[in-house]
C-alpha cells in the first residue's frame, strides 16, 4: 500500500481539503441497490413519516462512505485506511426535489501515531447540523 502523503510531512492540526457531497433521491436508490440495504425509510416518505421521521433519510452508510473520501482523496490510496468509525447523530433528510441534501465534510489530523499511522477526525454537516459524531479514520501514510 502506498499512500501519496508521508507521515513525516504531517502534523497535528493539519486541515485536509474539505468536500461537499450532493445527495438526491436518485443517490439513495443507487446506494440501496449497490449496498443491498432496501430499508423503506430510505426511499418511501409515507413509511418514513409513519415511523416519525420528517421525510426520507439517507442511508447512514452512504454518508459514512462520502465522509471518508476526504481521507482517501488526500492519502491517495483508499486501501491505506486501517480503521474507520462514526456515530450517526442526526439523519440526513433528503427531500423529493431537484436539490436534495448536501453533506459538507472537513477533516483534521488529530494524532500522529507510530508506524506511519495518522488519525484524522472528520466533521460532517447537512443543513447546518452535525450528522456524524466521533467520526475518525486511522490511515497508514508512506
Amino acid at each position, binding site marked *: 500500500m*502506498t499512500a501519496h502523503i508521508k507521515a513525516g510531512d504531517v502534523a497535528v492540526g493539519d486541515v485536509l481539503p474539505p468536500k461537499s457531497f450532493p445527495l438526491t433521491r436518485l443517490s439513495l436508490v443507487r446506494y440501496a441497490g449497490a*449496498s443491498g440495504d432496501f430499508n423503506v425509510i430510505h426511499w418511501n416518505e409515507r413509511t418514513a413519516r409513519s415511523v416519525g421521521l420528517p421525510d426520507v433519510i439517507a442511508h447512514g452508510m452512504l454518508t459514512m462512505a462520502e465522509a471518508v473520501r476526504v481521507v482517501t482523496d488526500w492519502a491517495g490510496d483508499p486501501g491505506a485506511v486501517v480503521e474507520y468509525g462514526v456515530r450517526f447523530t442526526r439523519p440526513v433528510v433528503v427531500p423529493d426535489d431537484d436539490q436534495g441534501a448536501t453533506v459538507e465534510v472537513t477533516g483534521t489530523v488529530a494524532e500522529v501515531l507510530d508506524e506511519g499511522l495518522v488519525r484524522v477526525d472528520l466533521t460532517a454537516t447537512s443543513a447546518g447540523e452535525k450528522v456524524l459524531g466521533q467520526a475518525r479514520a486511522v490511515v497508514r501514510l508512506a
Partner: protein
Amino acid sequence: MPLDPSFVGRTYEPTEPYLVTREKIREFADAVGDENPAYRSVDAARDLGHADVVAPPTFAIVVTSRASAQVMFDPALGLDYSRVVHGEQSFAYARPIVAGDRLVVVGSVENIRSAAGNDLLSLRQDVTTVDGEPVCTARSTVVSRGTSAEG
C-alpha cells in the same frame, strides 16, 4: 415490542462465501460517486501495491450485512425493520478487501440495551477469507426507535 435480551452473546454460523468482484466494487464506488481509479483499474490498484482492484473503506458492509441480517431478520428477536436506524458503525481492517477475495463472516450479538425509549442492538462481524485469513472486524449499533418497554 422490546428486543429479546437472550440474543446477547449469540454467535452465528459463518455466512456462505462471498466472492468480491471487480464489477461489484465498481458498482459500489459509482453509487457513492467516488471516481478513484483504484476502484476501477487493475493497473491503478497495482500501482498502489494491491493485488487487484481495491474496495472502498465502507464496502465491507455489503458482506457484513449478510451476517447482521441473520440476527435482525430472526423473527424471535422482535425487530421491526422500518423502525430501525443506524446508530454507530466501525471497521478495523487487517488488510483492504480486493477483487477476487472469497469472504466469510461470523456474526455475533454483543449487547442489547434500552435508552430514551429506544432499543439498541450492538452487533459484531468478523470477516475472514475462506482460508481463515483475517480481513476486517466490523461493529455496528442499530437503534429500534420507540420500541423499548421502558419508553
